[in-house]
Every structure is written in structure tokens, then in C-alpha cells.
């Protein structure tokens, strides 16, 4: 059935649109953006007072399937994505087995077809993400992988990383690195600084990220690969990426809502819902990340949605796994931390969720141009709501934003012309 989203403020950075209009979707594709559109028998969604944007893309999530279905499945993670206003997610390969083959890639693609949102798998760089032998990159691409990454683990061996970049380039895939020198970060549980020293927790120094970004940028220059830094979190890393971009390298980076919203001084003591990698850094790093979003160095916001079952997070801090869920709180945090504060415009925010990630992943989405896939994110800048993690469609509950009161958030999510979620 055709769908008309009426009277919203349509912001589509790709076509430089920002005006009140209707969006008509027919047969799963955008049929037009103009005032007073209608279609016989069309379903109508009244978006008066709301923002209507191209479907948001989260280029970095963990859906845990196959292997860790107690924490999340592709089905449950996709519903959480829909409830967070995302229409497409790219899922990292650190499943069990690791997505390092066309078999696993195909499995994720098939499960994704039944899910509420578009699911795009990211293949591993190395077999088992062990950092040694290259995975079957070409076969994974043929099966639907849109990028390669050993996320959760960095490729420590510089020679292996060089070869991976060469292959990624020849297959025209972006290579996404989780930047962490494991020798510098070994045993660390949170950002190394005044807070870790106070709490007697072992630190993950900012230098562990900086060192890896620096090495990889040199290798990106050597190989000409399209290189992307996942969840960037330090001032030096942002500065180095900016330097590389000015040199003309194909280098991009993303950051997460928690890295631009929180610092280590806002952590609750020993609360594992504040434990993730990279860790929440000090205020000056957080400010540098925000500045990177403002300046355009950081081109995408990605949630790094990382579900863990309750029992895994109900342990001594140092034993808890890293990661928090983030799909449902991303828009609210971006509005609260970046737009309401006047740091970026609404249009820039939409870019960070649409054209930004799409320019890296090349999904052919992130626009409302006629003929584009009918993915639409409708959100409000003034709806008041409180995040109750216990109501989340995710199978996990590990969020530091439980009970957080938001002003602004997703209102409706349309995927390929189907309304898959609506705020109650």
C-alpha cells in the first residue's frame, strides 16, 4: 500500500531539501517529495511539526547472531533499531562463528531479510578475527558484505593490515578498524586518567587508540585503501584523521552517542553500564570529539550497539564485558547534546545519520531522491519521553541511559515503504 507522510519538515541533505512537504512512497520506493501529495488508498501518516528525513543508517552494531542469541538476535536487534529510528544497520562480524566466510555472511543476509530493518553484514578482515590470516574477503563481498572489520579486536600485525588494505581496495570495500594497541591497553577497564587512578581500576590510555590510528593512516597512504576509524574517541585521533583528510587520503571516521555525550567523570562508580571500548574518555577528549563532529572530520554517528545479557554485566567491574546498547537513544542524545546546544544544525545531524555513513558503506540509501529506497525516519525535536530499558525490544538491558528523560526522539520508522515502528 502506498504511504504518504504528510506535512512534515522534510530535511534531505542529499538533495539539499529543507521545507514542509509530503513524502509519497509507492512500491517501496520514494515516488515524490512535494506539497499536497496523495495517492488512492494510501496510508497516511501525519507528520505535522515533525522532521521527515531519509532513513537513518547505523553503520556499526552488534546483533550477536549467530552464536550469542541469549544477548540479541538479528530479529530483536532490528526491532530495537526500528524503535530508535534506524532503517538500516551494518552488523559487525564478531559472532560465533565469526563472520569470516560467505556461509556466515549469507546466513546474516537471509536472517536480515526477515528483520524489521535492512541488515547489512560486515565481514571479518582475518580468519576468526585472529589477526593473522586474511579472511575470504571477495567471497564475503559476493555474498553481501559491505565492509570488512575485525571490530572488537584490532589487526595488530602491521603487515597483515597492509595486505588487508590492499585486498579491501581491490574489492572496493571500506576497511574499518577498531583502533587499540593491545599492548598499551592490556588489562584496562576504563579510560586511564584521574578517575581510573581514584577508583583503582586499570587504565586504557588514549595513546592506545592514537598509536593505532597513526599506524593505520600511514598504511592507508601506502595502499590507497578506503580506511574508516570506528568509534573515534580521542583528541589526537581526530586531529590525525583531519590531517590525513587534508592530505587527500580516503579516510573517514565515526563516533558514538556515548562518546559525544559522556566522559569518565560522569560514570557511576563501578557500574558496568559505563564500561565499553573505547572507554568514556576525559572531558577534553569528549570536547574534541564534539569539535570533530562540528568541523566535519567525523562524518558519521554510529551506536556501536553492543548487547550483553544481564548476568554478564552483573559482575565485578573488571570481569564485565565491554559495551552498551544504543540504538534507541541515539537520536535523543544527538538532539540533546549537539543540536539543542547549538553545536550543529538539524541538517548536519541528519547528514551524520544518512549521507555520512552511506558515503562510507555505499548502500545507495540515505536520500529521499525519487526512486530511492523508501526508507524514512520521522523524528520530533520536542516530544518528551523517558527511556525505559526494560521496555526495549533488545534482548539486553545494558544502557547507562535508563530513566534518562529526553526532549526529542524518533516518531516513526519506514523501511522500504512499510511503517515498521511508530511511537505509541
Amino acid at each position: 500500500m502506498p504511504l504518504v507522510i504528510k506535512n512534515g519538515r522534510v530535511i534531505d541533505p542529499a538533495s539539499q531539501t529543507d521545507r514542509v512537504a509530503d513524502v509519497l512512497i509507492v512500491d517501496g520506493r520514494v515516488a515524490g517529495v512535494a506539497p499536497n501529495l496523495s495517492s488512492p488508498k494510501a496510508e497516511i501518516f501525519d507528520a505535522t511539526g515533525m522532521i521527515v528525513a531519509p532513513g537513518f543508517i547505523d553503520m556499526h552494531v552488534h546483533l550477536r547472531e549467530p552464536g550469542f542469541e541469549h544477548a540479541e538476535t538479528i530479529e530483536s536487534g532490528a526491532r530495537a533499531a526500528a524503535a530508535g529510528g534506524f532503517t538500516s544497520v551494518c552488523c559487525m562480524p564478531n559472532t560465533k562463528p565469526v563472520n569470516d566466510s560467505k556461509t556466515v555472511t549469507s546466513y546474516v543476509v537471509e536472517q536480515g531479510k526477515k528483520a524489521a530493518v535492512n541488515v547489512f553484514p560486515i565481514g571479518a578482515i582475518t580468519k576468526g578475527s585472529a589477526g593473522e590470516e586474511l579472511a575470504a574477503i571477495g567471497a564475503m563481498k559476493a555474498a553481501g558484505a559491505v565492509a570488512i572489520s575485525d571490530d572488537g579486536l584490532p589487526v595488530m600485525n602491521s603487515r597483515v593490515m597492509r595486505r588487508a588494505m590492499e585486498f579491501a581496495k581491490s574489492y572496493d570495500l571500506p576497511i574499518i578498524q577498531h583502533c587499540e594497541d593491545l599492548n598499551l591497553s592490556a588489562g584496562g577497564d576504563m579510560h586511564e586518567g584521574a578517575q581510573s587512578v581514584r577508583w583503582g581500576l586499570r587504565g586504557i590510555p588514549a595513546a592506545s587508540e592514537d598509536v593505532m590510528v597513526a599506524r593505520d593512516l600511514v598504511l592507508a597512504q601506502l595502499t590507497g585503501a578506503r580506511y574508516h576509524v570506528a568509534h573515534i574517541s580521542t583528541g589526537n585521533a581526530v586531529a590525525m584523521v583531519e590531517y590525513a583528510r587534508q592530505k587527500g587520503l580516503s579516510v573517514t571516521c565515526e563516533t558514538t552517542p556515548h562518546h559525544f555525550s559522556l566522559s569518565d567523570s560522569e560514570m557511576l562508580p563501578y557500574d558496568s553500564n559505563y564500561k565499553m571500548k573505547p572507554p568514556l574518555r576525559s572531558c577534553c577528549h569528549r570536547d574534541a570529539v564534539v569539535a570533530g563532529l562540528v568541523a566535519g572530520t567525523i562524518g558519521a554517528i554510529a551506536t556501536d550497539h553492543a548487547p550483553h545479557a544481564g548476568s554478564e554485566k552483573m559482575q565485578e567491574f573488571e570481569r564485565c564485558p565491554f559495551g552498551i546498547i544504543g540504538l534507541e537513544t541515539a537520536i535523543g542524545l544527538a538532539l540533546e547534546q549537539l543540536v539543542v546546544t547549538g553545536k550543529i544544525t538539524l541538517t548536519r545531524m541528519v547528514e551524520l545519520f544518512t549521507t555520512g555513513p552511506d558515503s562510507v558503506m555505499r548502500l545507495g540509501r540515505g536520500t529521499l531522491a525519487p526512486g530511492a529506497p523508501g526508507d524514512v525516519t520521522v523524528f520530533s525535536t520536542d516530544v518528551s519521553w523517558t527511556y525505559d530499558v526494560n521496555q526495549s525490544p533488545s534482548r539486553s538491558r545494558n544502557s547507562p541511559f535508563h530513566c534518562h528523560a529526553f526532549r526529542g526522539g524518533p516518531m516513526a520508522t519506514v523501511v522500504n515503504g512499510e511503517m515498521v515502528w511508530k511511537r505509541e
Partner: protein
Amino acid sequence: MPAGLLGIEELDRAEIEAILARAKDFQPIQSQTVKKLDTLRGKMIVNLFYEASTRTRTSFEIAAKRLGADAVSITASGSSVSKGESLVDTLNTLAAMRPDAIVMRHAASGAPHFLARHLPTPIINAGDGTHEHPTQALLDARTILDRRDRLEGLKVAIIGDIAHSRVARSNVHLLAKFGVEIVLCGPASLLPVELAQLAPGVRLTTDIRDAIRDADVIMMLRVQLERQHEAAFPASEYFQFYGLRLEHMDLAKPDAIVMHPGPINRGRELSSEVADFTRSVILNQVENGIAVRMAVLEKVIG
């Protein structure tokens, strides 16, 4: 969160003074022929030690018994830990037996703080990882005050593996609340610069002579090889640069005292002569441990 004792950082000066004063009341009892009171008669205390400990566990157990309480001590080896039970499940099981307090030592920093959010029973921290060891700082303050009128204006040098020391952290928090000049000293790799932000009045140095100069109190820390996950310094030369020897005492105040939380490693962090030195108060610290822990148990349960 039930009122226990998780750390010194969150106590205010008046609360600390009250514990120290009460501990002073308990001191004479330690040398009486009948040492038992009935203040906590009918109360049950569980000592749950996830790390090996002789003095702290025994000290808590004796303190409980001298107050008339019943005490059960559990060590991690041979308990449900080895059967794979999670910490929170173990503690919930113990809490279901309705003890009046759980005294806990754990190798993970913050383990008692995490449990305190989920348990109805007051928890007394007997040392958590590299974070805090509140009763040690209290007994150290009691020991200093047995020899000085006040803490204000004193200079205290804490020397050794500061980075991994819960004793150092608790002492810094306590002493800083009383305006003590605190010098932390150790090899640079065990002395993160952020320690200076732990509390007001803290200074760092890598030079032991600088640390000791004009000190009223020299606290030596045990070299905690079990907490070092890498070789943070060449062990062979530790004593040469950071071991306390008799000749160092000439740099300190004439009546300066030497403290150590124990167990001491003679010849590693201090020479045997210093350990047996007349102004070494290491055994007084042990004795005060009982009085201070009686005061803490009484405050928490009484």
C-alpha cells in the same frame, strides 16, 4: 544502600574522628585479662575473604568476638567460587542467612560497592583490589595519634608501589581530610601523575630522600608483585632506590615513626634493621587494628 563502610573517601572528618575516638576507648580492653564485651551479643558477622589474608581476617574476627558477636569466616578457596557461582549470587545466598554485616575482601576494585547496590546487608570493605582499605587507614591514623596530638600539619611520606596500593589510597583520603602534607614516592611507572589529584595536599616524587626529608611519618608499602601485570620496574634494583634503610632516618624528623601495613618483606622494601628499629610501630598498627575494627563494627551494626 545499607550503611556499611565502603571507603574513606566518602566519610567526613567528624565520622572519622568519632571512629578514632571510639577505638581509643577500646584500646585498654586489648590488655585486660577478660577482653570480651557484650555490645554486639547476638549479632552475626560473616567475614568473606576472596583474597588470602591472615592479619586482616584474624583482626576482624577477634574484633567481632571481643564485642560479643558471632563471626563466621569464609575463604574463597573451597567455597562456591570454585563451583562457578557469580559473586552476586554468592552474596545473595549469604545475605539470605541474615547476617548483620558482611566483611569482605576482594581482588576486584569496587566489588563491595557493586554488591552494596544489590544487597540488603551492610558491607564492610576489608580491601578491594587496588582501590581502598578503609580500616587500614583508620588504624594507621589511630597509631599516629597515639604518638602525636593531632594530624594537622604533619608530613607523611608514603613510599612504594603507590599505583597498586589500596592502603595508600585510603590513607591519602583520610590524611588529606585533616590537612596533612602527603608525599607519595615510588618508581615513575608505579606513580601515575593523576595521583596528585586524589586529594588536596598531595605531592609526588620519585626520590626517596626527597620524600623522607622532614617527615613525621614514613609509611612503607609492600611490593605487591601479585598485582603487577608486567615488569613495571627492574625488581633487582628496587631496594637500592626505594628500600628504606637506617641511614635514611637521619633525613626525617628526629622522632619520626616508621609504619608498614604488613606483611613486611625484609630486604625488599625495608631493611631488617628498620623493621626492628625502636621507632618502627608496625606491631602497634596490628594491635590498633582490633580496636579500630571494633569501633567500625559497633558503628555499622550497633
